[in-house]
């Protein structure tokens, strides 16, 4: 068993980065995730694993530092929250276009604009439907516990390098700020320079006589070549949809009704289904772990079993559109969620289920 610690979600992300053999973290402070860079600054990992930690002048700069280092084959990550993530969208589009592996964490706060520093899940569209310009997708992982904040860092890098694609961890202020028990995984050594060159033959590590020069770019001025590049990206995304769907089902076997929720809302819904069952209502919880690729087929299957679905999100209703697409009007699908940093209570969510789905 690994070392047990009581940690904030944000601290767990930072500790996991050190342990996962990450080469560099570039970031800019913003509430509610500043503990990530603060923790890293305090730990001084450059003295132990050799990991670089640098506070950039902006999120624009930090995401482009990620671009540069990722393009040179290094394992690099950054984190931010809503307003900062919006600034990173340009860079993420370039990173996806140039097919660079990296991990980006969004500890979501309420918006739009400067919004609030309290938790929200209103960046779902931005994370799963693009956000930046052009046809691109990122694998989006949604942790629902501090343990998953830690575990999704190495998982994120595995997926990022498997697909040469950015991986996005969509957390929120609740998971970022709360403390839970974490079992820390063992240290993984950073790749040596030789390993980087062998594992990432595409990276700009310096042109040696044996190979053509490596170019990291997202620019293809010839429309025919650009379309081919787009087709290559789309094929990659199709492979993700086939192989990387992750989800969790809680008390779904006998469920007559279903709550679909991810991240912090899934935690709240877990309590709601307990309260429901105390009242004799058989409710299950379906928790998407990957928001891209979204578990369309599994939710479609559930629609053959349950009488209605409530999508519980800390937003005006974003994921609910994907659920509706999966269910295709077979059963009733409704959304419930508080906004602006207010967190729905388990009882409130159950009440919404009773009113909107179960009915009179």
């Amino acid at each position: 068993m690994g070392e047990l610690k009581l940690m904030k979600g944000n601290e767990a992300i930072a500790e996991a980065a050190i342990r996962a053999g990450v080469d560099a973290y570039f970031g800019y402070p913003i509430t509610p995730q500043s503990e990530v860079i603060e923790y890293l600054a305090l730990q001084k990992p450059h003295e132990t694993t050799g990991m670089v930690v640098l506070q950039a002048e902006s999120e624009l700069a930090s995401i482009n530092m990620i671009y540069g280092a990722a393009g040179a084959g290094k394992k690099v990550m950054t984190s931010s929250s809503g307003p900062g993530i919006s600034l990173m969208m340009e860079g993420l589009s370039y990173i996806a276009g140039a097919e660079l592996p990296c991990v980006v964490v969004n500890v979501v706060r309420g918006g739009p604009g400067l919004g609030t520093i309290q938790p929200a899940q209103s960046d779902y569209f931005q994370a799963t439907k693009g956000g930046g310009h052009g046809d691109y997708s990122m694998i989006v992982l949604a942790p629902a516990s501090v343990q998953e904040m830690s575990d999704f860092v190495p998982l994120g890098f595995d997926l990022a390098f498997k697909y040469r694609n950015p991986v996005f961890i969509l957390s929120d202020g609740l998971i970022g700020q709360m403390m839970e028990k974490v079992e820390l995984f063992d240290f993984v050594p950073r790749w040596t320079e030789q390993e980087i060159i062998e594992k990432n033959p595409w990276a700009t590590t310096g042109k040696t006589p044996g190979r053509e020069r490596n170019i990291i770019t997202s620019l293809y001025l010839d429309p025919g070549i650009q379309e081919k590049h787009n087709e290559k990206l789309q094929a990659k995304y199709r492979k993700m949809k086939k192989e990387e769907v992750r989800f969790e089902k809680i008390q779904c076997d006998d469920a007559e009704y279903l709550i679909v929720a991810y991240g912090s809302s899934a935690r709240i819904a877990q309590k709601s289904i307990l309260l429901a069952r105390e009242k004799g209502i058989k409710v299950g919880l379906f928790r998407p772990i990957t928001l891209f690729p979204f578990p369309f087929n599994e939710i479609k299957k559930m629609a053959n079993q349950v009488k209605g679905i409530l999508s519980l999100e800390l937003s005006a209703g974003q994921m609910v559109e994907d659920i509706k697409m999966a269910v295709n009007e077979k059963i009733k699908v409704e959304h419930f969620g508080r906004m602006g940093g207010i967190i729905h209570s388990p009882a409130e969510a159950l009440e919404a289920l009773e009113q909107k789905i179960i009915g009179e």
Partner: protein
Amino acid sequence: MTEEIIIAGFGGQGVLSMGKILAYSGIMQNQEVSWMPSYGPEMRGGTANVTVILSDERISSPILTEYDTAIILNQQSMDKFESSVKPGGTLIYDGNGISSPPERKDINIYRIDAADEASKMGLTKIFNMIVLGGYLKVKPLVDLKNVILGLKKSLPDRYHHMIPDNEKAIMRGLEIVEPVHILN
């Protein structure tokens, strides 16, 4: 066993660290734990509260609207949280600064004059540990030895010399907590 606790008071009273020590004590006896603070600008000097859950099972929602136990350290928190104690639950409060004491008849109420005691002991910084001692007397859900281990885990090394004082404060809290209203 699941124990859902809210600890609420002023920022600077050690509300968050008391919750952290309690959560760490839970880990020391192999429990699942969660610690969810209110955060933001209001932390800087205003009211602060933290929800702590100790459980033998996987914890669902870290945010709650009713609690098994409320530990209340100022009047604002009393106004806000007295009504959210579950019927049959427990409320512990420090009498210092409380102008309207709790009036509910369907819960157990205890009073601990920890602020006064801390200044008598000349150790105002360990006020929160006296309160924790009071809680442990009323709800002996975690072993004292695990609390000491939790204390060591959650305090940075440079504060470890203060552990004996903290221990003394916890012991004092065990002694001075007083029942106000007990359910039959």
